[in-house]
C-alpha cells in the first residue's frame, strides 16, 4: 500500500473539514484565520495555546471546536491552588474491592480546555507535560491512556501578570501553535452584540464530525507528501532562527517536526496531498514564535510577541523559497 494519501481521501478530508469549519463559524464570527489554524492544530494532533486579552473569545473558540467534534470534552479552570491530582486524577482506596482505584481527572477527555493555564503553579502545569507528550497519565507507576484523539486547548492572558506563573519553555515547546485571537472586525462585533447569547452553555453547537473521522483525518496528515527542496527550506528556516542574533535560542528539533506536521495538515486542509512553500511560510509564525525567546527580553509579553513575529517574518522574507 502506498504511503501517500489518495485523491479520494484528500477530497473527503477537505469536505469534512469544511463541514467543521462552517459549523465553527456559526459561533466564532469573523475569525476565519484563527479557526483555520485551530483546525490545522487539530488535524496535526497538536495542542493549542490561545493567548490574548480576556473576553475576546478564547474559550468560545475552544468550546466551539470541542463541541463540533463528537468527542468528550472537559474544562479545567486553572487557579493558583489547583493541584496536579485535580488535573490528572487520583488513586483512592476502595474499601469494597480492597485496592486503590484510579479516579481519572478532567484530563481524561478527548479535548481538554485548560483555561488561564498560567494561573496554576508550575507543579500543576508540569502535570500536563506527560499527558500532552504521550497522551498517557502515570499515577502510582501505572500508565493510563487518556484516549484518542487528545488535544489540549490552553488559554492565557498575556497582559495580566499578577499572580501568574509563566509557562516554562519545556511546556511551551509542547504546544504545536500559539494563536492570538485579536479583536473582531467592527461588522462582526456588531453581529456578536446583536445576538442575545451570554455564557458558554448557550452555545448551541451540534457535533458534525465523529471521533473516528477525526482519527482518520489525523492519520492522513502523515501521508501528505513533502518534497525534498521544501524539507531543505524548512531546515534552512529552522537553522536561521538558531543563528539569528535577536533570539536567545533557536527552534528545537521538536519545533522543526511540528512545523512539518502543521504544514502537512494545512496542505490537507486545502485539499492537497503535497506541501507548498506557502504552507511553511504561513505557519512559521504560529508554530515557531512561542518556541523562541528573545535575547533582550522585554517586560511586556505582547511587545515580545510582536518583536518575535517581526524577526521571524524577516527571516522568511530574506530566505529564498524554493521555486
Amino acid at each position, binding site marked *: 500500500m*502506498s504511503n*501517500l494519501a489518495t*485523491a479520494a481521501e484528500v477530497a473527503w478530508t477537505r469536505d469534512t473539514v469544511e463541514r467543521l469549519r462552517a459549523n465553527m463559524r456559526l459561533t466564532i464570527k469573523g475569525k476565519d484565520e484563527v479557526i483555520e489554524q485551530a483546525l490545522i492544530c487539530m488535524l496535526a494532533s497538536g495542542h493549542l495555546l490561545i493567548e490574548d486579552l480576556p473576553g475576546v473569545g478564547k474559550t468560545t473558540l475552544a468550546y466551539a471546536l470541542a463541541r463540533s467534534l463528537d468527542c468528550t470534552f472537559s474544562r479545567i479552570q486553572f487557579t493558583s491552588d489547583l493541584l496536579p491530582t485535580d488535573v490528572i486524577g487520583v488513586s483512592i482506596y476502595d474499601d469494597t474491592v480492597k485496592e486503590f482505584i484510579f479516579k481519572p481527572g478532567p484530563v481524561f477527555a478527548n479535548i481538554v480546555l485548560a483555561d488561564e493555564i498560567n494561573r496554576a503553579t508550575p507543579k500543576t502545569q508540569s502535570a500536563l507535560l506527560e499527558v500532552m507528550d504521550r497522551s498517557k497519565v502515570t499515577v502510582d507507576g501505572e500508565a493510563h491512556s487518556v484516549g484518542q484523539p487528545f488535544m489540549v486547548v490552553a488559554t492565557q492572558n498575556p497582559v495580566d501578570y499578577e499572580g501568574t506563573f509563566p509557562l516554562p519553555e519545556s511546556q511551551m515547546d509542547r504546544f504545536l501553535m500559539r494563536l492570538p485571537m485579536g479583536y473582531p472586525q467592527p461588522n462582526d462585533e456588531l453581529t456578536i452584540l446583536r445576538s442575545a447569547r451570554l455564557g458558554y452553555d448557550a452555545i448551541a453547537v451540534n457535533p458534525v464530525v465523529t471521533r473516528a473521522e477525526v482519527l482518520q483525518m489525523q492519520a492522513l496528515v502523515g501521508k501528505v*507528501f513533502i*518534497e*525534498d*527542496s*521544501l524539507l*531543505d527550506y524548512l531546515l534552512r528556516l529552522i537553522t536561521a532562527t538558531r543563528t539569528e542574533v535577536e533570539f536567545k535560542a533557536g527552534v528545537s528539533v521538536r519545533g522543526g517536526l511540528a512545523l512539518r506536521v502543521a504544514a502537512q495538515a494545512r496542505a490537507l486542509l486545502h485539499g*492537497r*496531498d*503535497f*506541501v*507548498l*512553500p506557502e504552507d511553511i511560510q504561513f505557519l512559521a509564525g504560529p508554530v515557531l514564535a512561542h518556541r523562541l525567546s528573545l535575547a533582550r527580553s522585554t517586560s511586556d509579553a505582547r511587545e515580545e510577541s510582536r518583536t518575535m513575529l517581526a524577526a521571524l517574518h*524577516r527571516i522568511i*522574507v*530574506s*530566505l*529564498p523559497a*524554493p*521555486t
Partner: protein
Amino acid sequence: MDKSLPPLELNDLRRWKWLLGGLLALISLGTVIFLEVEARGLVGIAAGLIIATLVWPVLPSRVPALIWRGAVPVIILVLIADLYFSPDTLPPLIRLGILLVLYRAVGYRRKREDLQLIVLGLFLVVVAGVLTVALEFAFLLLLFTSCALGLLFVVALIDLTENTQKALTYAEMSCCPAWALGSWPQYFYRLRKIIDWRWLGFAGGLFFCVVIFSAALFIVIPRFEITASFFLDQYITRQNHTGFTEVLKFGEVGALIQDDRVALRVDVMDPAVVGVAPYWRLVALDEYTADGFKVSAELKQELIRSQVVTQQITDQKFESSRVMTEGSWTFYLEPGVSRFLPIPGRYRQLRLREPMPLQSSRSYRLVALRTEAMTMTAFQLAEVELTDKIADPGFSQRLRASEALSIKQREQSRADVSTNLRGPLGSVNAAVLTRINTEITAGAVLSPAEYAQRTIAWLQAHHAYALSVKLPVGDGQDAIVRWLASREPGFCEYFAASFVLLARAANYPARVVAGFHGGIWNGVENYYMVRNSDAHAWAEIYDGAGSWLRMDPTPGLLRVSSSAMPADFRSLPDRSWRARLDSVRVLWYRRIVNFDTRAQVAMVEQVKSFTTDLGSVWLGELAKYPQRLRAWWNRPWDLARVRELSVWIVGITALFGLLLGLRRWGHLPSGWRSVDYDPVRRTAGRWLTQLTMDPDDQLIADLRRLRYGPRETWPVANVVFRRARNARRRGRAR
C-alpha cells in the same frame, strides 16, 4: 545620547556638487596644458581662482553683482580682440573656453549653469584630445567622464529632492530598511534563484556578438588618422621645441639639455644593430650667413621640386648585399621636433603609414614632410645600413658647374652647390680662418679625411665643452670666427660650425648637419629612446671622391648628456620607472600604427582559418582516439603494462571514491544535490514564477503538483508545460 546618523541634507549635496563642478573645471583646464596654445598663464590664473573658490566657497558671494553682470560683455570683447590679433582661429576659441569655464566654475550654479559647465569642459577636453591623441588625454577623459557623471547624478538628485521637498526624518534614518537586512550570501542565493537564465544567456550571447563584431570591425576597417579627418589642425600653428628648423642659430642650449622629453622612439629587432651612439640625421645646413647656418635656397627648392604624395620611397640603386641590419626600423617621431625625418643611414625603402606629401633630396639624403606633423609621425625603414658616408657621386660635377657660373647666373641657377664652400664675408674673418688653417695643415696639402682629423684635434685642443658660451666681443668679425679665435669653451653647434668654416676656408666642401646623437635603449619594451636633450650638430666634409664623410668635432664622449652618465654606461638598457611609463606610449603607438593593410588582411585570414581549422582539428583528434586505443590494446602485454594499467584503475577509483566521500561529508557545494537537478521540478518551478497566480486554476494546480507533489501523482509534464506556454501567450505572464 542620540546615536542615529544625522540625515544627509540638501546642503550637503549642494556642497558636494560644488566640489565636483570645481574638479571638473580643473580637469578640463588640465587638458589645455597638453595643447600648444598660448594660454598657460590664463590656465594658471583660472586654476588658481577655481581652487580658491573650491577652498572657500563663500568667495563668490564677496564679488559685487556688477562684476558678474559685466563679465560676459568683457569676455566677448576679449574674444573679438583675440580673434583680431591672433593668426589662428582655434587658440582664441580655446582661450574663450577657458574664460567661460572660469566664469561658470567660480560662480554659484543651479541646474542650468551646471550643465553649461559640463558642456564647456567637454569642449576643451575634446579639442585637446583631437589635437594631441595622447594617452594622457584618454586618462583625463576618463576622469572627466566620471566627474561629469557624478555631477549630473547629484544635479538630478538635488532636482528631485527640491521638487518633492521630502527628506528622511531622524526616526526613519535610525530605522533599518528591509533591504539592508539579510546576509550577502543569502542575497546572492536568492538572486541566483530568481534570475531567468534564459534571458541572461540571451543577453550574454548578444554582448558576446557585439564584442566579436566590434573586434572584427576594428581588425577589418583600415585605420585612419583621426586628426586628418578633423578640420581643427588647420586653425593652429605649432611651436618648435627642439629648434630643428632650417636655420641653426647659436643660442643657449641649457634649456634644451634639460628637456628630457622623448623626441624619437625607434623600434628595432635588436639593440645591437643600433650601436652605442648612432647619429640620427635630420637636416643638412649648407649655407652660411651672418645669422648662422641654414638650409640653402637651392636645397629648399630641390625639396619642393621633389615633393610628391606618396607612401613610400625606394632606393633603386640600393645594393642589398650590403645590408647590415635585418628587419625594418620603425620610427615614432613626436610632434614639434622637425618636419625632417631622422635617418640613421642608408636604407632600401622608407614607408609611411599613408600617402603624404613627402619631400626628399637624393644628393643630400634628406627626407621631409611638407609641413610639420600635428601628431606623432611614424615611418618605417627597410634594410637600414648604418654608415658615416653619404654618397653623392654627382657633387664634384655640380660644384664645377656652379663655380663656372657668374654670380648673377648663380642666383638664377637652380643647382648652385657652391654654398658648400662659402664662409663668412670680410677679409678679417678670412684672415683668421687662413691663419688657423695654416696652423693646422702646416702648409701641407692633405686629403679631406686627414684634414678633418687634424682640424678636430686642433679644435678639441683649443676649446673645451660647455653648455653656455661667452662670446668674446669683437667688431666686424663673425661670431663663430670670434669664438674660434678665442679659447672659450662651446657646445656642439660651435664646434660643428667652426669645423665647417675652417674646412671651407681651406677649400674643402663642408656642411653642418643637425640631428640627434645617441639615445638609450628601453629595456622594458625593447626600443630605442632619443630624448630632446640628445639633439646634436656635427659636420660633413666632401671627400672629393663622391662621398660626404661624417665628422663630429665636438669633444665626443665627454659630451654632457641629460642623464649625466658616461657614454658607455648609458648603453645599458634603461629600466627605470620613467622608461616603464614611456613604454606604455610605445605600446599604444604599436597598436595604432599600421604601415600595411596587408597585415590586416593577413590577420583576418588568420582569424578565419583559425576558426575553420579548429573544428576540423578537433574532429581529427577525436577520430584518432579509437585507433590509438586499439593500437595500445594490441601492444604485447607484459607485467609492467599490467602494473601501469592497474595503477591507473586504482587511481581513478580512488578519485571517484574521494569525490563520493566528499559529497557524503557535505564538502561539495549544495548545488550538487539531486533536488536541484530534477528537470521537471525545475521547469515547473520556473513556470510558477512566470505565470500569474490563481490557486483555483487547474494549470497552477498541475504545475504545483509537478513542482512539489509526489512523483506518482504527476500529470503528464509536457502537456502541462504546453498549456503553460499557451497561457503565457494569452497574456498571463507576470
